[in-house]
Structures are given as C-alpha cells and as structure tokens.
C-alpha cells in the first residue's frame, strides 16, 4: 500500500529529532531512507511503526491515517536490526506469530512465506540453530506473513559480515518484490541504498532533503551535502562564468562544463529544506556567475601522461581486480582519488597529469 508521511515532527525533551519530515513511497516500491547516524531516520521509522507518537504531522498507509493508532492496529511489518526473532519459538512459530490462530490457511501461509525467503523446510529449527543471514530472512518472512501494508527494515544487514551482506541483500530484495510489498529500508550505507532501492530519500538533520531514483540522487544531488554523502566526491572551490550562453566552471583542474541541473522547483521529488541549495546554478540560468564548489566523482578523473592537465604525484594504488583506486596529490596539495580500470599502469611515485571527463556538479556559495 502507498505510504505517505507528511511533515512529521518529534522532539525528545529539548532535542528536536524530526523537523517536518515528509516521505512518499509508492505501492510495491522499495524505498531507502539514507542518512548519517543521528539524523532521525530510526525515529521516523519508529513513528511509522507506531512505537513513537509524533508531535505533529500525518502518517497514512493506503489512504488510512494511522498516526493515532497503536502498533498492533497499523498493519506494519518490521524487520529490526539483527532480526530479533523470538528465541523461544521455532522458525515456523516465529513466522506464524502474526497469523490468526487456528485458521486453516495458517500452516500453508507459513510454508509459503518461508519459501518466499528461500528457507522452505527450515520451520522446525530454533532461531539459534540457523545462521545470521537466515535469521534475517526469517524475520522478513515473519513480517510479511500477515500481509502488512508496509514493511519497515531497520538497518537489517548491519550485523552480517560483508561477504554475507551482499547475498542476503539480494535475497531480501527478491523476496520483497515477489511478495509485492511496499517497503522502507533505513540505512546509513549508501551502497546498500543505491543498489537495493527503487527510490532513495536522503535524510539530514531531521528532514528528508531529497527524494528520487538512485541514479538521479547520485547524478543530480540538490546540494553539496547530498553530493558528498551519496557517493564519493572531491570538492574544489570554483568560479562559475557564462559567456555566449555557455557556462564554464573554472577550478584548478581547468575549465569544466557544469552539469545541467533540474531546477528544484520544477522537480516534485526535490524538496527544499531551508539549506543553501543550487538555486542560482542550474544550467544557463544565471549569467552573473559566482564562486562556489565543484564536486568531482572518482570516475570522472582521467590519469594521463605528465604535462597533460594538472600535474600530480601518485601516492597510492588500491587494486580491487575489476577496477582500481589511485590516490594522487596535485601540485596545489589537494588530494584526489581516481577510479580507473584494473590494469592501471601507474605506481606510487609516478608523475601523472589529471583531467576531468564529463559535466561536473557545481554548487554556489
């Protein structure tokens, strides 16, 4: 069911944790709420689930206002951090916990949900007899069993080790999609958010600052904060100038082409939240130019022979197989990290030239 959170506010004592947070998740979508720790994302989740009461604002699930309802009347499934299976109940009884007792369909639904998460036949095990990743999937099956309107996942992969995390992530996403569930995933891991979610909402200081598809958030961040939080970026001070209808951003890596940005006002998914935004920068709009910052993505750097572009010294080469990261100290002292192909010919101590490829992100101010 569609989830609509509108202008929710919440304070704990003198601390204002949510300052008018709004979020919309379409039916059947998996949305990620992405933010650093302490930004209020867990509180937002707990308000949707009904464990906290908002001071103001509305929470609607499928058109029904639920802000005043206790958790058990909301039809919201939760997958807590580390699963939180009931340790005294078997896997099957955990999954069946939310189903009406004595109903004829109960056993069938339990098996169906276990199958959904790829754990058919595990019903008789106890929670401590299965692995952490399996526990997480049982927790998902348990949440999905009563067919909730919305499923909330609170940093569900934190406790898993790295290698396991990617596979459990895929299994969880696949299960949510098979179930056709509307889901909200709360995380501080941008890779997790970008790779799993249909839509990403970036949260900061108690509010959602930008919502959009993973690609649009990465390519079109509304401000420098989002740009550096979602994905890596090297930030350099720059000057914007316009001549003959063409904008140029000048920085120490040369004259670059600013990316044509969509105006926040014209894009419903971009929300202004009072911080200094990209207002004066979009495309050819501002002829006066001005000072600001460019944010350069690691994959935009191209390493060339010395003499081409800005000169620098290779500090470090990290080889990952499919690609590599090369750390270069420019002559000005600025350090950049470039993503290159795996067969990188450079060694620490080499002199290189650095140029930038493609349109860049420019933010005034």
């Amino acid at each position, binding site marked *: 069911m569609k989830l609509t959170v509108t202008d929710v506010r919440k304070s704990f004592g003198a601390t204002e944790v949510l300052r008018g947070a709004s979020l919309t998740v379409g039916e059947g979508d998996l949305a990620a709420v992405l933010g650093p720790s302490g930004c209020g994302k867990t509180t937002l989740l707990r308000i949707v689930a009904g*464990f906290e009461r908002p001071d103001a604002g509305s929470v609607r699930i499928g058109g029904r206002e639920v802000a005043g309802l206790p958790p*058990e009347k909301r039809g919201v499934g*939760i997958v*807590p951090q580390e699963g*939180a299976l009931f340790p005294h109940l078997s896997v099957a009884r955990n999954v069946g*916990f939310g189903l009406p007792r004595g109903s004829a369909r109960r056993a069938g639904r339990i098996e169906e949900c276990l199958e959904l998460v790829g754990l058919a036949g595990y019903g008789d095990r106890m929670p*401590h007899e299965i*692995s952490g990743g399996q526990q997480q999937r049982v927790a998902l099956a348990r*949440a999905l069993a009563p067919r909730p309107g919305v499923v909330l996942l609170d940093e569900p992969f*934190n406790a898993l080790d790295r290698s396991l995390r990617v596979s459990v992530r895929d299994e969880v996403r696949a299960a949510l999609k098979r179930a056709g569930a509307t889901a909200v995933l709360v995380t501080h891991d941008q890779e997790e958010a970008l790779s799993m979610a249909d839509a990403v909402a970036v949260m900061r200081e108690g509010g959602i600052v930008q919502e959009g598809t993973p690609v649009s958030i990465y390519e079109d961040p509304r401000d420098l904060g989002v740009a550096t939080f979602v994905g890596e970026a090297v930030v350099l001070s720059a000057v914007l100038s316009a001549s003959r209808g063409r904008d140029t951003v000048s920085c120490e890596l040369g004259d670059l082409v600013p990316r044509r940005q969509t105006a926040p006002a014209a894009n419903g998914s971009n929300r202004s939240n009072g911080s200094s935004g990209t207002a004066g920068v979009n495309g050819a709009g501002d002829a006066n130019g001005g000072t600001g910052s460019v944010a350069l993505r690691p994959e935009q750097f191209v390493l060339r022979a010395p003499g081409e572009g800005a000169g620098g010294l290779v500090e470090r080469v990290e080889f990952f197989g499919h690609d590599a990261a090369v750390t270069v100290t420019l002559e000005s002292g600025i350090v950049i990290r470039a993503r290159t192909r795996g067969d990188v010919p450079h060694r620490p101590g080499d002199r290189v030239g650095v140029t930038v490829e493609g349109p860049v992100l420019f933010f005034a101010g």
Partner: protein
Amino acid sequence: MAVRPIQAEPAGRRRTAGTTGRRIPAGLLVPAGLTAALALLPVGYLAVRAAEGGGDAVARVLLRGRTLELAGRSLGLAAVVTALCVAVGISLAWLVVRSDLPGRRFFGVLAALPLAVPSYVAAYTWVAATGIEGFAGSVLVLTLCSYPYVYLPVAAALRRMDPAVEEVALSLGRGRSGVVLRQLRPSAAAGALLVAMYVLAEFGAVAIMRFDVFTTQIYTSYRAGFNRTPAAVLGLLLVAITLVIVVAEFRTRGRTGYATRGAPARRLPVVRTGGAARAGALAWCAGLAALAVGFPLASICYWLADGSSAGMDAARLIEAVAATLGVAAAGAVLTTALAVPVGIVAARYRGRTATFLEQSTYVGHSLPGIVMALSLVFFAVRYVPAIYQRWPLLVIAYAVLFMPAAVGAVRASVLQSPPVLEEAARSLGRGPLRAVAEVTLPLALPGVLAGAALVFLTAMKELPATLLLRPTGMDTLATRLWTETGSGAYGAAAPYAALLILLAAVPGFVLGRRSLEETS
C-alpha cells in the same frame, strides 16, 4: 554456521529500553497498584497506631537517648554485615564462575546453601559451641547466613556478561576487574540492599546473641503491655531508615542501560590461577563453606546423637513438615503472582509512578516480621475478622515480607529480554499486555521461577511472623524448633532443625545448580 542472534546494544536503540513518556497500560497498572497497596498496608497501620498514641507520646519515644543508641547499633550492624557480604559474595561468585578453581561446581552449589540455614539456628549453634555473642557474634552469624543474597545475583550476572566487553578493556590496556565490577554493580547493589534490609529486620539471631537492636526493643515493647505506641513509633522509624537505603540504592543505579540483548554468551574466558593464589582461593571457599554450612550441620548432628534419649514424636514431625511446605508454597505462589506486574513495570517503564510502585514493594520487607505480623493481626481483627488466625493471613504476610526478592527477580529477568522483541510482537498484532505475556514472560520464566524458589526457601524458615499469625494448633518446623530450643531442649529441637535444613537445601541446591549449568 551458528551466529548468535543478538549482541551488544547499538547506540540508536537505547531510547527504547525505558521510554519516559510511555503510559503504563491499565492491565499492568491496576494489579501493580494493588500489590503496592498491600505492601504499604502494614506501614499504614503502624502510622495509624502511632497516631492513636498522640503526638506527645511519639515525641517522648523518639527523643529518648535509648532510641538513638538503638539506631546506631542497628545501622552499624547492617553496614558491617552488608560490606562483608558484598566482599564474600563477589569473591565467591568470581571464583566459581570465572576461575579454574578445582571443584568450583561443588563450591558453587555449597555457596547457595547457607540460605537453608535459619539465622537463629546458626546463632544458637555458635553460642552453644563457642560462647561468642554481642556485636561480633551477630556480625559472624548474619554474614554467614546472608552472603548468598549477593552471591547468587552476582554469579548470574557474571555468567551472562559479554566477554567482548572485557576483551575490549584488556585491549585498551585496562585491567579486567574495573569493567567487570562496573557491570556487576546493579546485581551486587540489589543483593546488598536485600542484605541490609534483612539485617535491619533480623530478630531471632540478634536476640540469641544478646545484642540489643531496634527489633528486639520493639518486641520487648510490644510484649511489655497494653501501650503499643512505643513499638509502633520504633517500627516506623525503622521503616524510615530503610526507605533512605532504598532511595540511595535507586540513585546509584542511575541512568546507565544495563540491558543486554538476547542470549547469554556461550563461553566465558576462564581466568587461570596458580600456586599460592589457587591454594588461597581454595582455602577461602572451603573455609567459608565449613563455617556457613559445615559448622551448623555438625552441631545439629551432635544434638541429634546426644538428644536421641529425648525421644521423637514422628506424627508431630510429619504434621509440621506438611504445614511448612503448604504455607511456604502458597506464599511463594502468591508472592510471585503479585510481583510479576510490579517487576514488569520496574523493568520497562520510567517515571514517578513506576518508581513509586517498585519502591513501595520494598517497604514491607523492611518491617521486622514481628511488627508486620502484629500490624496484620490488628488490621485483620478490626477489618477482616474472617481471616484472623487462618492461613490466608499468614500467606499474605509472607507475600509482603518476601516481595522484594520476587520483584527483583522478575525485574532482572524481564530486563534480560530485549524490548525490541515486544515491539516485533506489537507490529504482528499483539496489544501491549499480550506482547508481554507471549514473548517477555516466557523468556523471563527461568528467572521468575528462581525468584519463586527463593521466596519458598525463605518462607519455610520464617519465624517471627509465623509465630504470631499461624492458625491456632498449627505448627511449622520453625515454630516447633523455636519452642523446643526456647525451653533448652536442644535434643528435641534437633530433628526439626535437621529437617528444616534438609527441606530448604533442595531449592538451594537447584538454585546453585542452575547458576552453574550454563558454565559447563
């Protein structure tokens, strides 16, 4: 691969453990309120009694030099015994749970056994054998009888401690003792609180040791004549002193979150001892066991052998056993049933109401059994004559007396169950009470049952309240023992003492075993 389900508590979740503004649901509030009212009833009656005496009489009792002297004696005795019990309890718990001491399982079982030795029996064995009495004798006997109140919760806490915390401390160049002691504080403080209140309320042992304190003076005043005012005033003063201790303990508990999430650690690091340290540790454990359990047993055996000439009335003995088991079991059931709502409120809610409900249940225990019993007698005579001199009144007295142990057990075991499980149950359609009943209580059950066993154990050897409230003609083992020893018939008393210790040793043994099970 078996991954432990849940581990240390991430920062973002701490808020859930005790949310301040949450309302206590009526289904918990009403029974918890009734329990608190029952616990406060005897004190309330005392206040009424004292007030009936008039202001002048109250002032006269309070301002006597003798009153101050008694207060000093009672407090001094409580302070010394509590300090010794904390030292003994923590050292034993650490050696049994964490060291490689030979025979530590055996010592673990032995360490819980002194709970089965009634303090007045222990006092008598010491007085008879060594002639020790007064302050020194009271300290010796009360420490040996009550250190398990610290040992048991501390051993349990040590066992469920996350070894990772210690390893972190070691890796940061700190000793392990600091972080361990810090984590033991809530359980040690709860145990110390019980010891302090137990000593303040102690009557039999100090009377035998001829050490005059509040309780003995209250008893004398009650017995002295028709004027009940002095005893009521002294009783109220003792309640006031205990209240100060309860508040102090609550302050030290502070705001730190102690909830561990999920299953206890599977394997604890064992600390190696060697050479002189091991010999010293062995001597310490063995010596304590010999003094606390061996000495009274040997004494009773001597009496049994010596006094066989006195003859034994088997029918009387069986009758007394049945009566003892019956009232103690009824007491344990009622106490636990009353303690569950208060324990849940104390574990899950913060705020004035929750604090009041929890602390009010401690008040009843601080009343000396003799005062509490007389208070109930008068209340029953005046308002509910139907239960006067019937067993329900005695069972109610047990519930009021032993409520703190049961509430503490419920609270501690509910804290062990992470609140996120209740939230999961809520999101799956359970109301707040059903979430507690279906998730938290089953998980807390072992701890709650351990609390019930402790109440059963303590009720079986309760003397002063039983003396006053038992139905006419009913004798428990404790009252028979008191009657026989009172008349100097040590031989005739011995079978009752032996049976009492044997019966009480069963739950003690189970408690000790339980505290060891997870270490193996």
